[in-house]
């Protein structure tokens, strides 16, 4: 360590997407503070959407940049920009879902005062009230900013900061569901406690790796592993603990236990944000850490990742079968998809990287649309998430049911959907990377996952509706746009994926 502090070389242009999103979040806070109550919602939507779109534009303009900035702490390269762009678009979709007001009778999916004790008199009054708060917009924007920073971090300490920036608002947002308050608060506490554990693991791992490599920059770790000079015990322990923190965020087995509860308890738009964006961001970070930092120590982590990938696919797929709640089912399905994604990560090749990037994009859009459809099916107590109440939906509302069926088929990986192309790309990379056995497990588990997706289709289309079933609410333009965009991307990537595959391929180079 040099004793004098070097003055960092500050290049703001390459991190414009981050600056824009964080600026939009700060403006959101100011809006909360100073704008009159009546105009806040409109202002917040405009600020958030405009900020995310501007971030998207800036990632497009930056395309092709391969640069380390801020003393090599932030890497602006293909994967960073690809994921930031994806996150910006999916962020817009999430903000649109958060802005939906016409579904819930009392307006919005988010409670006005989250601190009220569930079951108390105030809580009962709150359920009837049409009071709406708008802090969730800046919270979501801060979280999205953290998510965009996370895969860009080339320095483990900064990565920890990004992890916290993205996580803390999410912990809060998980507890903001307007209906079923107790479940929502439970989700928030669970997510916070387990998340804090995972963060601690991550941080301890960073400390140990500092002991191993004498630095927290990925380049320093890569150099240390190349020269094989350091203490291997520190490397193994540090890597393992670091990876625990990351695997927690992507929801891989055995760190998946929080997903079903948190996905179920959170307000569904927030669940959509978590399922799509958090996973994308965390996979981006995982890819960077493994490919850039530990690429040369592959024998130290690839066997472990084989085991994790197999476990994740099997546990996610099998447990999803037993679920009776649609949000929990989608949660376990997201665990299974994490397993499929890990096949691509494990390939440790350029194909693996580009396939994983493509998969993340495809999966994000399909998932966000799927959760958006979940918000539409409602009964008197809010969303009707029990699968039994979805029976006969195809008769009552053919368009919504057909949309959901298509999204489920995409998640199952049926050809002519983005899910198939993504799976194909990942599995091809897996076989090329020598992980044929992993791919065989993957295809078998795909058949298992198809079972529970198809079961929902059976329920919706082949079963009779229960007498007092839920109704399908007519969404406002916000949700409709989010679903439409998700559906369109799912179709387009399933039929003509070449353009996006090209982008993902060009983006699949880390700067180091």
């Amino acid at each position, binding site marked *: 360590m040099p004793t004098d502090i070097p003055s960092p070389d500050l290049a703001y242009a390459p991190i414009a997407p981050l600056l824009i999103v964080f600026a939009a979040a700060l403006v959101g806070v100011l809006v909360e503070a100073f704008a009159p109550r009546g105009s806040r919602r409109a202002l917040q939507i405009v600020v958030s959407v405009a900020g995310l779109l501007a971030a998207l534009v800036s990632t497009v303009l930056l395309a092709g940049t391969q640069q380390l900035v801020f003393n090599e702490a932030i890497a602006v390269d293909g994967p960073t920009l690809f994921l930031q762009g994806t996150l910006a678009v999916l962020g817009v979709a999430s903000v649109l879902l958060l802005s939906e007001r016409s579904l819930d009778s009392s307006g919005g999916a988010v409670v006005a005062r989250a601190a009220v004790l569930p079951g108390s008199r105030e809580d009962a009054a709150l359920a009837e009230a049409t009071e709406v708060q708008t802090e969730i917009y800046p919270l979501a924007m801060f979280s999205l900013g953290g998510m965009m920073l996370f895969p860009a971090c080339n320095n483990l300490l900064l990565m920890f900061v990004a992890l916290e920036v993205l996580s803390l608002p999410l912990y809060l947002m998980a507890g903001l569901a307007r209906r079923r308050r107790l479940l929502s608060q439970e989700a928030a506490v669970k997510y916070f406690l387990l998340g804090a554990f995972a963060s601690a693991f991550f941080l301890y791992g960073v400390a140990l790796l500092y002991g191993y490599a004498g630095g927290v920059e990925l380049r320093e770790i890569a150099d240390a592993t190349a020269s094989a000079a350091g203490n291997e015990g520190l490397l193994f322990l540090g890597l393992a603990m670091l990876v625990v923190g990351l695997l927690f965020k992507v929801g891989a087995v055995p760190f998946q236990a929080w997903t079903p509860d948190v996905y179920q308890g959170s307000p569904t738009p927030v669940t959509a944000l978590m399922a799509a964006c958090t996973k994308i961001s965390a996979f981006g970070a995982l890819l960077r850490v493994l490919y850039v930092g530990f690429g040369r120590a592959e024998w130290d982590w690839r066997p472990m990742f084989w085991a994790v990938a197999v476990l994740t696919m099997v546990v996610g797929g099998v447990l999803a079968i037993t679920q009776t709640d649609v949000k929990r089912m989608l949660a376990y399905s997201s665990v299974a998809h994490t397993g499929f994604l890990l096949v691509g990560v494990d390939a440790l090749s350029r194909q693996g990287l580009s396939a994983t990037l493509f998969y993340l994009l495809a999966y994000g859009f399909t998932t966000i649309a799927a959760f958006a459809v979940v918000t539409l099916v409602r009964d008197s107590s809010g969303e009707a998430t029990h699968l039994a109440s979805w029976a006969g939906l195809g008769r009552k509302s*053919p368009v919504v049911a057909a949309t959901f069926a298509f999204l489920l*088929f995409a998640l*199952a990986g*049926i*050809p*002519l959907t983005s899910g*198939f*192309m993504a799976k*194909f*790309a990942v*599995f*091809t990379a897996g*076989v*090329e990377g020598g992980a*044929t056995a992993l*791919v*065989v497990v993957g*295809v*078998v588990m*795909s*058949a298992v996952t*198809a*079972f529970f997706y*198809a*079961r929902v*289709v*059976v329920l919706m*289309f*082949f*079963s009779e509706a229960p007498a007092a079933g839920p109704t399908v609410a007519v969404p406002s333009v916000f949700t409709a746009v989010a679903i439409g965009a998700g559906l369109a991307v799912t179709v387009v990537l399933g039929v*003509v*994926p*070449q353009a996006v*595959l*090209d982008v993902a*391929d060009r983006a699949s180079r880390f700067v180091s």
Partner: protein
Amino acid sequence: MTDLPWLTILGLVPLVGALVVAALPSGRDALAKTVALAVSLVVLALTIVMCAAFEPGGDRFQFVQAYDWIPAFGVQYAVGADGVALVLIALTAVLVPVVVLASWYDADPSADPLRRVAGTAASATAGASGSASSRRVGGGTAVLDPPQPAFAEPVDSLPPRRSVKTFFALLLLLETMMIGVFAATDVFLFYVFFEAMLIPMYFLIGSYGGPRRSYAAMKFLLYSLFGGLLMLAAVIGLYVVSADAGEGTFAFERLVGLEMSTGVEIALFSGFFIAFAIKAPLFPFHTWLPDAGAESPVGGAVLLVGVLDKVGTFGFLRYCLPLFPEASRILGPYVIALCVIGILYGALLAMGQKDLKRLVSYTSVAHFGFIGMGVFAFTTQGQTGAVLYMVNHGLSTGALFLVVGFLIVRGRSRSIPDYSGVANVAPVLAGTFLVAGLSSLALPGLSTFVSEFLVLVGTYPRYPVAAVLAAIGVILAALYVLLMYQRTMQGPLRLPALLGDRMPDLRGREVLAVAPLLALMVVLGIYPKPLTDVINPAVEATMQDIGQSDPAPTAADGAED
């Protein structure tokens, strides 16, 4: 004329038709049916013209088109038809209008005059027309089951009304996929159609099928998907092998003759084989078929057994053998053994069935045994016979399913003991039933005889024991068909109670649906040459791909490994 993109047009016409039908307003059922029929007839006409343009002695693949689709994976949109694909596309094009015509009321049984007559005959005689019109009034939504006689079990009840236009849109969508799967000459494209095809069929069974339809639909989907996903692993493996050998590709003609180690070849062969064996289905992968065949609406069953399952045997011939000749040679004898078991087992189970549709499904298991045996016999005669068998089986089993369906529409029961002496009251129905049945048991003079004979003749030089055992299957076939005929059509008159002692004979629409199939059976039975002329070169090309030549016809000792 061959410059036209025939195969693409053939695929697009039903797709557009499906979209048009689906977009019609939901009240216009009659219009939806008419449009579907017209579209399927247009496809048939186009197919006939295309077949006329096909030059039997010309290139192996004709009407070829190839465009880059996903260059990142080396995937092309590549179509082309050899003789085998051509006849199967023609079979598809023939069966779809037949199915449309035969399924006219399947989505909306309450609109079917036949079923209304059946429903009222037992209770009243005079009020038939009156009750018919009163039920019409319900029109769009409320028309469900007409009043059921008390003795009718739920199994026999009239299925509820479902969306008519969706039914026909799904049929047309399925036609696109079926044509695509046969026309594809890119393995990836083939796979896409192979899997995507499941979805419309899944909805046809699940939405429009019998009482246990969701179980059957699920079983069908899961079996097929499982096989399909194993095949996906093999497809990926094949791509990686081709990438290691130079450039990654899925183009069939470039994959043929790819060098790989025997172990890899056997692994990849197994992935393809299991998928196709489930699809076909061969013993022991057949258990989904009786359920799917029995619960599917009759039109769906005709297409399922007549065309969809052929994709499996087509896949053996087109993909398993040429791509993996070494593995095919090593594993061929085991496959033949499975086929022989299937022939005997399917026939025995068919004899034991009390459910008409299950019976027909099990006969198909036996027939697919024959087809598989012909393919893996590695002789020109065997393979030509197998391809002919695919076509003829589509015609004969299709006809059998249709006639059985007509019977079930009248009696609302699938149970064989419920019927006896039907020939007394419905001679035309009984007659077509007999012809279809005789075709199914391969009576000389009908088309199936030619193919069964060729398969046996082609198998004998290499696998004499298998051929002899399979010949027993021919006798069993006579038993199950004739027993079924005898039990239901002959003897003293006994009908399901709701019919009383009257049963309407086949109507004009039904005759129109089944007659072309019967006519084709007779014509192709007497003069199969147009088909064999087309099939032979394709089969010879396959034989060349796998480096096999026919053993000397005298070879009693020809049972080399």
